[in-house]
């Protein structure tokens, strides 16, 4: 999970961990490209407005990389053109900000059924 806002990251982590998901998170967008070289997540959730590297570019890079292109990506944003961004970078879904726990869990469950 990538978000440059610590609180967003904390809240989402709590929601997901409550449902039994294992969460690995980072505040630094660039770090994800390095991390995925050694670690392969089942799903990536990322904000598209990140300081430093643009979330859209990270998304595109992940989808261009052979090793990571099969990992589903959910984008999180308040951006009005999120649907277009999803299409452009090849992401698999999106969640609009602000969202509730159910929105996030429903979005995630589409790709990753909750762990019993």
């Amino acid at each position, binding site marked *: 999970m990538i978000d440059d*806002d610590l609180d967003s990251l904390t809240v989402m982590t709590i*929601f997901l961990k409550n449902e039994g998901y294992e969460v690995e998170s980072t505040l630094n967008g660039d770090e994800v490209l390095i991390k995925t070289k050694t670690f392969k997540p089942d799903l990536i959730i990322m904000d598209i407005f990140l300081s430093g590297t643009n979330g859209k570019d990270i998304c595109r890079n992940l989808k261009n990389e052979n090793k990571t292109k099969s990992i589903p990506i959910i984008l999180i944003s308040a951006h009005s053109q999120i649907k277009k961004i999803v299409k452009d970078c090849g992401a698999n879904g999106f969640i609009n900000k*602000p969202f509730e*726990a159910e929105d996030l869990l429903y979005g995630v469950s589409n790709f990753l059924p909750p762990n019993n």
Partner: protein
Amino acid sequence: MKPNKKKRNKKNTTEDAASKKQTKKLSELKTALDYAEAIVATVREPLVVLYPGLKVKTANNSFYKTFKVSKKETEGKQIYDLGNGQWNIPSLKKLLEEILPQKKILKDFEVEHSFKDIGHKIMLLNARKLDVRNDPMIFLAIEDITEKKSIESAVEKERKIVEFERQKMFNLFMNAPALICVLRGPKHIYELANKPYMQMVGSKRNLIGNPIRKAIPELKEQGIFEILDKVYKTGNPYIGKEMPIKINITETGKTEDTVLNIVLQPYSDSNGKVQGIISYASDITSLVNKTKRIEELSRQKDEFIGVASHELKTPVTSLKGYTQILQMRFEQEGNKKAVELLSKMDRQINKLTNLISDLLDATKIEGGILQFHEVLFDFNELVTEIIEEMQQATQQHTIIAKLALSSKIYGDRDRIGQVITNFISNAIKYSPFANKIILTTSKEGNKIRLCVQDFGIGIPEEKQDKVFDRFYRVSGDKEDTYPGLGLGLFISSEFVKRHKGTITVTSTKGEGSTFCFVLPVKKHV
């Protein structure tokens, strides 16, 4: 006998010769007189011949006719006595008695006088004194120039008016707050340029008499000369809006960017041949700069609101998340009071979220970047969903739905849903003492109508057309208690308009309001 005869004959011959000479002279004189009289008689202008004592020797027909007198009552009478003394004019008297005896000839002496019989006249007198064997005669020609004078004076009056108008136009032209110049001929030679024009191009320039290519050479490469050539050649006027022009200010040596609205109007001679061009321009540089500045400010403002709204959504999301987490924890602990308080907090966060969304939507509408995601969806299903959701938000009001048969409609489901939500939440908000809200849908051909009726405070008639304006809020003593940004109906009306629909309100103050929209069901082009 011959010589006698000859002598006698000679004497006779002498006598005869003298007599013959006399007769001949008399005859010549008579001829001359006849000749003179004939002249006098034929001259078109009144003519009178006076002899000593200023008595009339003779006058011509024109005289009798003009002054309405007969030959009988004229000849032999003193001129002053004629026609009941109407010729007793002091200026004429002076002329005949003082000036003429000395000068003998008088030319174009004007006399203005009111004649008893013929009225007010202006006469032009020409007189000549002739001394025929101590028998002085005066020839007096009288020309009635009254009419000529009146025409002349009318012409003069007309000329003065024309001159006055011309001066007026010239002053207007010179002092007009527009830039005006007149260019003559195919080379566009400056004939006139008014003060503002001179100020624009720099007062030190030598314009008049010079072709524009020489007077303002920097206009080359700016397309102006080509336009002037075309106007002159075709005779068609040219209208240029917001034309940027670079002028070198002679005083400062700087190049000034000027923006002009310009009209180049050709003018022609009486045969329709183009003679030159009148250039009329207004300097709108400051206006254009102001507009640009306003546009830039407006863009900055929209960008700011956009970024601000976006930045606001992130903490709101976290806030909402923490609230939910706390709710879950307290629920697990069985602390119902805390759960209730947190759900109130969550409602407030939702309000805040909606306000931010409205701000963001309004900004997108103003910036022209509002995007729609149109799909085919079941209209009644959407309406029912929203009613259920909104019903949860109010315990006081019952939302009564009267829905037409379901219909599929093409449009942005979320945006249309937003409009319906806005209608219902307004109905709740502005009818604090009512207990019902009626929502009806009906099908009208290829269109769907939805109306939400409340029984609340209503909107005064004069304010009804303003409710869809941006930032408009119902105001007044009582209405001040209703919060909001005044964006909801503005956004709703924009959404409806973008779907090629119409939005309306009918209301009676104190009785309630009905808000309706009509949307086409098919995909609009």
